[in-house]
C-alpha cells in the first residue's frame, strides 16, 4: 500500500516519537509513505471557531498538495488533523460559497483541490484486516503480560463521518491491535472520554483534573500502561502526568505509548529508534518487568 503522509505540526515537537515510530513500523509492514511536500497547519479546530472558510482553505492547501504529487489518499498520525481535514472535505462538499472562496485562495498560490482526497488515520491503515494479518505474522516479540488500556480520545472517533472507520462509542481498532501484539486490552470505560485537549493551555486546573481522571481510571481498571493514537492526548497524559501527580499528590507512574511504539516493540525495534526515551514517564522499567526489554 502507498499513501501520502501528512505528519501535522506536532510531529516536530510533542509528537516527534510518534512520527518516527510510525515511519518505521509502516516500512516494516510494507506500507509506503510519501511525504506531502511543504505542508502547513491543517487549520485545526481553533481556526474553525475563528473562521471556518480560512480553516478549510488551510486544509485544502495540504489536500491540494496531495493531489499534486499524484496521490488519492492521505494518512495522518494526528487525530486532530484527521478530524480537521475530514471536516474541511465535508464543508467544501456542502458549502458552495466556501468552496468558491477556497478555490480563489488556492489559485493565489497556484494550487487547486478537487475535494476528492480521502483522509485516513495511521491507526486506520495499520489495523485493517489485511494489515493486522501481516502484523500477526511479523510479531517477533509478543508483548505478553502487558496490560494495556486502549485510549482512543475523541477526535479520532467523533464526529461520525460517512467514512469513519470506528465506532464513536465503543471503538475496537486499538483493542484488536493490542491482542494481535500479544498484549492484553484492559476494559476501560473512559476510552473515548476527552482528555481536555488544548484546555491545558487555557485552564490548567480543569485540564489537569480531566487528565487525572483518565489516568486514575486506567490504573483502577488494572492497566500497566495506556496506548493512544493521538499526539495531543499523549501530550496531556504523558507530559502533564508529573504535574497531575504533583497537584493531586498522587503516584501514578503510568507509561503512555503511541500505538506505533507498541507495534515497534513487538517487531523487536529498539526503544531508542521508537523514541521511548522521549517520554516524560519512562516506560523502560515496566517493559523490563514484563520481560519485553532486557
Amino acid at each position, binding site marked *: 500500500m502507498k499513501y501520502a503522509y501528512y505528519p501535522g505540526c506536532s510531529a516536530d515537537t510533542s509528537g516527534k516519537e510518534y512520527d518516527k515510530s510510525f515511519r518505521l513500523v509502516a516500512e516494516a509492514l510494507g506500507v509506503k509513505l510519501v511525504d506531502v511536500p511543504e505542508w502547513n497547519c491543517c487549520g485545526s479546530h481553533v481556526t474553525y471557531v475563528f473562521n471556518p472558510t480560512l480553516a478549510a482553505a488551510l486544509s485544502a492547501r495540504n489536500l491540494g498538495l496531495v493531489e499534486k504529487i499524484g496521490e488519492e489518499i492521505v494518512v495522518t498520525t494526528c487525530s486532530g488533523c484527521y478530524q480537521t481535514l475530514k471536516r474541511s472535505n465535508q464543508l467544501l462538499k456542502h458549502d458552495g460559497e466556501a468552496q468558491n472562496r477556497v478555490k480563489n485562495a488556492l489559485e493565489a498560490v497556484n494550487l487547486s483541490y478537487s475535494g476528492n482526497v480521502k483522509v485516513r488515520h495511521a491507526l486506520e491503515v495499520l489495523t485493517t484486516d489485511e494489515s493486522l494479518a501481516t502484523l500477526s505474522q511479523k510479531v517477533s516479540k509478543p508483548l505478553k503480560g502487558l496490560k494495556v488500556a486502549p485510549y482512543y480520545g475523541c477526535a479520532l472517533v467523533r464526529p461520525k463521518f460517512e467514512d469513519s472507520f470506528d*465506532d*464513536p*462509542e465503543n471503538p475496537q481498532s486499538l483493542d484488536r491491535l493490542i491482542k494481535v501484539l500479544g498484549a492484553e486490552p484492559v476494559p476501560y*470505560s473512559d476510552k473515548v472520554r476527552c482528555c481536555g485537549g488544548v484546555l491545558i493551555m487555557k485552564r490548567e486546573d480543569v485540564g489537569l483534573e480531566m487528565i487525572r481522571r483518565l489516568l486514575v481510571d486506567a490504573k483502577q*481498571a488494572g492497566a500497566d500502561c495506556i496506548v493512544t493514537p493521538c499526539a495531543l492526548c499523549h501530550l496531556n497524559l504523558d507530559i502533564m502526568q508529573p504535574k497531575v501527580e504533583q497537584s493531586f499528590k498522587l503516584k501514578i507512574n503510568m507509561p503512555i505509548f503511541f500505538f506505533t511504539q507498541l507495534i515497534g516493540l513487538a517487531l523487536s525495534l529498539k526503544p531508542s529508534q521508537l523514541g521511548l526515551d522521549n517520554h516524560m514517564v519512562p516506560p523502560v522499567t515496566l517493559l523490563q518487568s514484563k520481560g519485553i526489554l532486557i
Partner: protein
Amino acid sequence: MVSSEEPRIGVFICHCGGNISDVVDVEKVREAASKMPGVVVAETNRYMCSKTGLDLIKDSIKKYGLNRVVEASCTPRMHLNTFRRALVDTGLNPYLLDMVNIREHCSWVHTDKDTATEKAIAIVRGSVMRAHHLEPLQPEYRPVERSVMVVGGGVSGIFASLELANKGYQVYLVDRKPSIGGRMMQLSKTFPTLDCSTCILAPRMVEVGQHPNVKIITLAEPVKVSGSPGNYDVTLRIKPRYVDVSNCASCGDCAKKCPMKRVPNEHEAGLAYRTAIYLPFPQAIPQAYVIDPEHCLYFQKGTCKVCAKACTRGAINFDDKERLETIRVGAIVLATGIDVMDPSPLKEYSYGQHPDIVTNLQFERLLLQGMLRPSDKNVPKKVAFILCVGSRSPERAQAYCSKVCCMIALKQAFLLKEFHAESEPWVFYTDMRAAGKWYEEFYTRCREHGVKFVRGRVAEVKPNGSSITLRAEDTLLGAQIEENFDLVVLSTALLPSIGTKEVGQLVGMDTGPDGFLLEKHYKLEPVDGAWTGVYAAGCALGPKDVRESVVEAMSAASRASTFLGGGKIEVSPEKAFVIEDLCDGCGVCLQYCPKNALSISNGKATINPVSCIGCGICVPVCPKQAIDLKHNTEKQLLASIYGVSQGNLKPLIVAFTEKVVGYRAADMYGLDRRKYPPNIVIIEVPTTRRVGLKHVLHAFNAGADGVVFVEAEDNWYGLSKEDGLKQFRGHVSQIQRELRKFGVDAARVMAVAVTLPQYYKLEIFDTVVNRVKGAKPLTDDAKAKIKGVLSS
C-alpha cells in the same frame, strides 16, 4: 324520472363556524351561486351539518321543489352520508346530491381571501354544472360471511375473539407463534393494580381455546388476501409443528430426552434455555409441544429422533409439512402486537457488554425467576431503571414516546423493593408520564416506598468490573451524577412487531412514519382500516397498555359485528356500463380492465357488475365511446371541467385527483393547514385513468391553463404497485405526446403519485403552478386546433 325533469338546484354553503368563512367570503359565493344556471335557491348556514342546517336543506327541498342539491362544505369523506340522509328524508334519491369541498381543498389551504373566494365560486360552479346531469341510482346488496379472522393471539386478539365468538360469529384466531398468549404472558404483574399477568390472562386463553366458535390456528401467518368486504379470502401459510396437537398429552417425556438443551428461551427473553422440542410455556394454548427445526438435531444433521422414541403416544411426526390454507371470512381484525427494540445499536448503553445490563422485558422475567442478577445470581442492591432508551429520539432511534415505559419502570421499581426491601431502585426519567386512571397515585406510592427519581436522561452506561457505572445529569440540579449500580434496566422502545407493514398491505392498511398501522380516522375511526371490514386493535396501532388494548379489542369486535350483523353489504352502484348501440365489439376494453369484468357476448362488450369496481379505466380507451360510468358519466365529468374552468383565476390548473388516496391526501394537506396556490382546482375521479386525452382537451378548451394528475402510489384497483405506477406514468406521457401535436407545451400536464403518509408530496402543486406559468404560451392556433377536434 328525475333526470328528465328540468333541474331545480339548491346550493347550500356552510361557514363551518369560521373554518370556511374566515377565509372564503361565503356571502359572495352564495350570491354567485344563486345566479348559476338551474339554481333555484342558494343559502348559507353557520353549520350545515347541524340540525338547523339540515332542516334548512330539507325545508328548501320541499319549499322550492328541488330535485338536485349542491352542498359546499367540508370533505365528503366527513359528511357525505349526513347530507345524503337529508335528501332521503325528503324522498330524494341520495345520488342527486353533489358535494363541493370548500374547506380542506380551499379555506384551509389558501390564505388570500379574494382568490380563495374566487376559487370557491369556481368549484361550486363545477358542482352545479355537474348536478344538472346527476341521475338517481340504487345501491345493490350482497350477503356477507358471518366469520372473522383475528390475526395475532395476544391479549388484544384473545379479547377480540372472545367478544366476537360470544356474539355468535365464527372466529379464526391466527398466531405465528406456537401458542397464543403474546407479550402479556411474559409479564410479571400489571400496573397499577399489580395483578399477576399470567393469572388474569391464562383463564381467558383457556376460554378462547375451548370456545365452540373459535378455531385457533398457530404457527400461521396470512400471506394473501383477496375478495371484497364481507367476503375476504385469506390465505394462511401454516408452518409444521411436527407434533400432533390432538395426540400430545404435553407430558414432557420428549423434551427430557432431547439432546439440544441450550436453545435460548424466547419466553424467558433469552434469560434461560429450552430444548429443541418444547412447550412454549406451561400455560400454552394449544397445550402441545413443538419442534423448532432450526435447533433440532434431526433437521440440522439428519439423525436423532430421540423424542419420537420417547413419545408413547406417537404424537411426533417428522414428515409434517408447511401448507397453505385459504379461509373465507367476512371481516379481519389485525392484532399483531409489538416487539421490543434491540438496544445494542445505541452503544452508549453498552447492552450486551455486561450480563447485568438488561432490557425491561428481561427484567420482567428476572422478577418471575426470583429477582437475582444474571451474572452471579446475587441479590442486586442498587438497580437503575433508564427510561427513553430508543424512544423520543428522532435522530437516534424512534421519534415517538413508547408510552408505557414510565409505568413499567415504576411498577418494576416497586416490585423490586417488595422483593428485596433493602434494594435501592433509581429511576432516571426524561419526563414522568403517569397519565391514566390510578397512575399518578401509583407514582406517589413508589415515592412513598423509597424509589429514587432522577430527572435526566442517562448519557452513558459503562461496565466497570462487576458493577456498572452510569453517568447522567440531574437536570433539576444542573449537576452531573455518576453512580455505580448492580443491575441496569433499559426501558427500550417498543416497535411494531416484525411484519406489521406487510400484513397491513395485504388488507390495505398503511403504516405511519412510526411503523404502526394507520387507522382510518385518528380520532373518530380509531380501530377501522381503510377497507370496510378490516379492523385493528392493540399495539399494532401503537404502544399501549393492557387495559387500553382490551378496550380496542372490544371496539374492533364491535365494529366487525356491526358490519357483519346486517348479513349483507351495500355495493356501490357506481359501475361502468356499455351503451350497446355504439359498441362494435372490438374488445379493446378487455385488455385494460384490471378485474376482468369485461367480456364479449353476442358481438357486444358486457360488464359483470359483481366484478366491476368502477375504476373507469375502460371509459376513455373505447374507440367508439361506448362505455360510460355511473355517477361519473361523460356528461357529468365534462360539466365539472367546464364549470370549474370559467372565472378569473389565472392560470387555472385542473387537478384530476384519484378518489381513494389522492383525494384524501389533499384532505390531509388541508387538515395540516399547509398551503398551495388557489390556482389548483381539484376534480375527483375514480382513477386518473378515467380521464383521457379528450377530457384534457376539453379542459384547455374550457379555459384551463394546465392539468395535473394526482394518483395513488398503491392503487386500489388491483394492480401491483409497479404496474399501477408504470401504467399511470405511461398514460400521462401518452397525453403529453398527443398534446404536442396541438402545439401545447408538455409542461402544462404533470403527474404526481402519493401515499397517505406522504400526503405532503402535494407540495408539488407550487411547482405545478410555476411550471404552467413558465410554459410556452397557449397560442390561438393551438386553441383553434383543439376546438376543431372537439367539435368534429
